[in-house]
């Protein structure tokens, strides 16, 4: 179960995605839920930026119940 938090906002909200979800797709969903422009958004997992939209969340070690952070440039 994944949650995504907009940096500077609380609480995190449920992210309907799975470890097999592509990063690009997860960014799109997260941005839509927080009402942000996906083109200006990226996801972070701790200190790590999920920079490759073609990789899966699992590729970045995200497999369980986690809180991701949505950063808006």
């Amino acid at each position, binding site marked *: 179960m994944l949650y995504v*938090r907009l940096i500077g*906002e*609380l*609480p*995190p*909200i*449920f992210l309907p995605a799975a470890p097999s979800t592509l990063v690009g797709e997860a960014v799109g969903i997260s941005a839509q839920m927080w009402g942000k422009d996906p083109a200006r958004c990226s996801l972070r997992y701790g200190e790590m930026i999920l920079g490759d939209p073609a990789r899966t969340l699992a590729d970045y070690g995200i497999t369980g119940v986690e809180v991701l952070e949505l950063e808006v440039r």
Partner: protein
Amino acid sequence: MNLHWDVQEATLRNLYENYQLTTSDLEWEPDYVARDEVHHAAYQTRIKVKNWASFDDPFKLFFQEYVKIQAEKEKVFHDAIRLAERFGQAKRLNPRWIESQKFYLPAVTNAEAEAHRSHMGIARYSQSSALAMASFYQVLDELRHSQNDVHALRYWSKYVDSARNWAVLFQHHWAVQVLRSLFEDMMTPQDPFESLVHTNVALEMGMTNLLFVAAPIAGAANGDTVFAQLQMSTQTDETRHMALGQAALRVILEDGNEENLALLQRWLDKWSWRMFRGFAVTGLLTDYYAENKTSSFKEAYERYYIHGFLEGLMEDFEPLGLKPPRFMKEMESEVDTISHQIFKLAHQYNYINYFRTFPPTEQDKAWLREKYPDWDALVGDYWAKVEAGDPGIVQGLPMVCNLCHFPAVFPTPEKPTLRSSIYQGRTYHFCSDGCKWVFDQEPEKYYKDRTLTELVIAGEAPGDIPALREYMGLPADGSWGGDLFQTDDWKAWSDSHQ
């Protein structure tokens, strides 16, 4: 010789002797079993006191006096409702305040009803007859409070649709789960004497004045004499409960048993944190719903909790080894922010609420800035956007603390205290160090907990908004929630009070 004082001493002696006749003199030493075995092992307390006979109920009530006092209080409360009904008070109240009553009554009524059950553990299993009797009066008090809450709901049901649906709201509504989880935790203590600490000490000595003094003062200032009288009628019992808790705590601590002390400390640490989270909702009434404001949540907390409870009552127990609650630093750091975080949160999810919220007015903001100098930095931008036309709502299920059931919004977005624990392979999320600590102490008590968000994700509660509203006890169209200032009720009231 002072005859007056002699008579007074004799009278007091007679009262005391009579009280002994109806309490400890009714005890006998059993022959069939040892005294420790009179009660089933599952219900025996781990609190061991050698000299329970030293417990002295400060009030020394007899049933006759108890009934007489309560009957007088009942009459005043029921008269207050009759007068309010006869003269149409509810129709003249500020709609802002009415929203506070919509929120409040469904959230607490069941709790008062259930409080009597947990206290029956002390009435039933205490080895002190005087303590058992005082606790039994408290059991009756809690039942009286719940019936008065139901009576207030009946009164409100003539004016407010949601008051008729309070039982479903208590069971399922997301915002009420905060209080339901707290009350369920209280109903299921691990030891009969844990109830003494959670109810009489952490709640009634600690937090009760916020809800039963500060909040009714705000109610009276906003014209709601029904709420004011309801709360004050309860508070006069709370005073007796506080004295009971204080006297019992002293007897236990003076016994000098280190195991007792460790148990009491753990219960005090746990329940002080649990109560702080639960009673923070009083800040919605004092800081936001009351247009005529009296004291802020922070001021009430400092007056009643810090000065009244910690400095006034708990300091007496420090020489006996009891330390201040473990999470005091966290409480102090949140008292500036918690009511604002919760009201903002309620507004962000107002499309699934049974009560309405609103952006603070200029008058509200001036008061909030005076009472909370960091208010603008915390939520000022959010409310500015709402005023500019942004509805300010969030579409998505929030992460909810697996202990207190508040969405994880504390203490501030810049310093989030999101925590987690893994138990039996499942990850649990918490909004704070306090909630994580409580869970980690007794994971076997809490591990089956599922938040509304988790029920939705598991397919056990509906995921689409209209169906979710109905599941929670609201009409599917969301008409009970939203922004109060956009409603016809508000516009009509506002126009008539220009």
